């Protein structure tokens, strides 16, 4: 990770990322969580093996960072209604019991570590605040129509 990547390589890598990996993730929330997971907590650098092989580690890193910021900006612009829908879609995609998901997200607030670098604190606070309300709405809906496996119980370990 020494020299900065060429701008054209970064654009090509980002395009490749959007067409292949991110094509299966239509919701920005899903993309945000996925892209945040490709970032090293200690260095703040992104890594994607396939993309790094096809382009370069530097280009892949910058492309992942760009797509991460893009997903976050889409979340900032999303209305609360859209956010509830996105949260529900994301919940379905995780295949986790809805109750466990709600408890974990309310308790751990994993979205707080999924913010890209350089985002203004007001934008991130707006997204956190909207996600908090969206979670409350989703929880209330799930409680109104309980399903097997959707029972709310506390996390075993927090």
């Amino acid at each position, binding site marked *: 990770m020494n020299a900065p990547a060429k701008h054209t390589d970064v654009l090509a890598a980002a395009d490749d990322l959007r067409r292949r990996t991110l094509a299966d993730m239509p919701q920005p929330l899903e993309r945000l969580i996925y892209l945040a997971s490709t970032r090293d907590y200690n260095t703040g650098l992104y890594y994607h093996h396939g993309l790094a092989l096809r382009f370069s580690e530097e280009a892949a890193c910058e492309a992942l960072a760009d797509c991460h910021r893009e997903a976050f900006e889409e979340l*900032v612009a999303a*209305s609360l209604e859209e956010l509830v829908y996105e949260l529900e879609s994301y919940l379905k995609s995780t295949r986790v019991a809805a109750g466990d998901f709600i408890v974990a997200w309310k308790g751990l607030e994993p979205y707080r570590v999924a913010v890209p670098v350089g985002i203004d604190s007001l*934008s991130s606070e707006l997204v956190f605040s909207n996600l*908090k*309300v969206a979670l409350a709405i989703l929880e209330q809906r799930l409680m109104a129509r309980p399903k097997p496996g959707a029972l709310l119980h506390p996390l075993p370990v927090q």
Partner: protein
Amino acid sequence: MIGLFLYVALGVGLLVFLWALARRKGAPVEGCGLQFVEARQALRTLQFGLLPENLIARIFDPEDFRYVTAASPEEIGKLFLQERSRISLMWVRRVRSEIRNLMHFHLAYSRLHAKLSLLTEVRLALDFALLLLACRALRILLYLRGPYGARAVVRVLTAAAGRVCAASEKSLAFLNPPALESFRRDSAGHGAAI
């Protein structure tokens, strides 16, 4: 005798006035680079972090509230209003703080470097006064009426903040000369960084 006292009082008054004028310090020109960088940072924060139209529209959009009240119980509505009020108050506080940073920069340093006409300076001073007043009024309205009770003040505030940003952009334009920008763009393609 009374006339003498008057003349002495006038003389003392003039001396005090001259002493006060002599004690007034101008902003030191040396070492003011940091203030320019801070002013540019405040300007960037306003332009890209606090004043983008879509962000303001999202914070103060009543559609979200309509959605919550239509689809959720009362306690979620309360939670939403509490959260949105917190965010809108945070927005006003941040805007006020950055505006004050820019105002201090204009008062102390801008006139040394930027050629602003008297009319522009007067307009700028009025805009700063209007902005600080609007920020205060907005904070009170947000406390009293919640996030959707002050949309007109939000519009006034954002318009005045836009004008101040445009004037500050001119004052700070010399920090990002076009030649350097084009050099930066060209060099990025060859792996060199400035």
